[in-house]
């Protein structure tokens, strides 16, 4: 399967499909497709898996795209960020954060998985329910910010700000670790815990979470006016006066 990721911070992945090739994607992520591609919404995996997907922040229905000849189909995420292709192997499943799945080849299975440790659930920053990518093929994940990839060797570890982990191989151990020192806990800005990822395996981190982006933008968003102009006249005056 050929694909091309274009754009910088609002990326689109275009997948080239051969005749009868099939990809599936999160509902609503389509940007464009060639006219020889058939689109069909399906509750892949049955009712229970579809309900599970809903808990993982995905859509109940996934959209399948089948090509009737050489065709193109393009997908994009729902926030400024990066798209990353992941090679999924039968021995190399991947766990990604909620809502990270964008699209995948037909051979890739999307399911939900749970955090194993109580501490990771409440203080790890990724929540209880996660997405699991297994099977064989290429899957594309999308998350806010830019990505940093790192291959951890056996026994190696990395400490990450909670919530900044996009995904990790199943062989990676996901845990939390306390920040050292009372002063650092209260004034360090990272909180009480950091996420501790221990190899072997690949980890993907993000430069900014959607939550952090929203918090950074919040002070600049226009507030609803309690008094003043409204309606057609108000809009006209606002536009005329440039407000």
């Amino acid at each position, binding site marked *: 399967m050929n694909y091309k990721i274009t754009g910088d911070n609002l990326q689109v992945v275009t997948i080239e499909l051969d005749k009868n090739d099939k990809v599936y994607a999160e509902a609503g992520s389509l940007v464009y497709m060639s006219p020889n591609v058939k689109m069909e919404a399906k509750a892949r995996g049955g009712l229970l898996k579809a309900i599970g997907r809903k808990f993982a922040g995905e859509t109940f229905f996934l959209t399948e795209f089948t090509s009737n000849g050489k065709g193109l189909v393009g997908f994009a995420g729902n926030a400024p960020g*990066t798209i990353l292709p992941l090679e999924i192997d039968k021995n190399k499943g991947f766990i990604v954060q909620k809502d990270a799945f964008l699209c995948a080849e037909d051979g890739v299975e999307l399911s939900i998985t*749970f*955090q*194993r*440790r*109580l*501490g*990771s*659930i*409440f*203080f790890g920053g990724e929540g*209880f329910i996660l997405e699991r990518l297994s099977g064989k093929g290429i899957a594309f994940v999308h998350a806010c910010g*830019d*990505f*940093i*990839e*790192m*291959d951890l060797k056996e026994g*190696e*570890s*990395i400490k990450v700000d909670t919530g900044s982990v996009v995904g990790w191989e199943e062989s990676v151990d996901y*845990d*939390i*670790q*306390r*920040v*050292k020192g009372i002063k650092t806990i209260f004034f360090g800005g990272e909180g*009480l*815990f950091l996420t*501790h990822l221990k190899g072997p395996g690949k980890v993907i981190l993000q430069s900014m979470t959607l939550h952090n982006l929203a918090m950074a933008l919040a002070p600049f968003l226009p507030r609803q006016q309690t008094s003043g102009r409204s309606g057609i006249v108000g809009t006209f005056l606002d536009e005329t006066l440039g407000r």
Partner: protein
Amino acid sequence: MNLTKFVLILLSLYFISLIASFIVKKWTLFLSWAGIIALSFIIFSVIFGLFLIALAIGYAIIKKPVVEKGDYRIERIKGKGE
């Protein structure tokens, strides 16, 4: 930690809240069934908050920070398009 254990923890916390609500009903006598349910949710949120604080303290004690040894070089970091 699997789904069953997680649900069991939440259910047991709610069960405690429900018992507490019944005790309140026994003392006050004027609470309706809807009132008991509403009160149990309020108590549950308080107990759950306390549970989270206790858990944070517990994990802060257990999950001590460790400065590990290792050789981490910038060449190992891959960014966009690499």
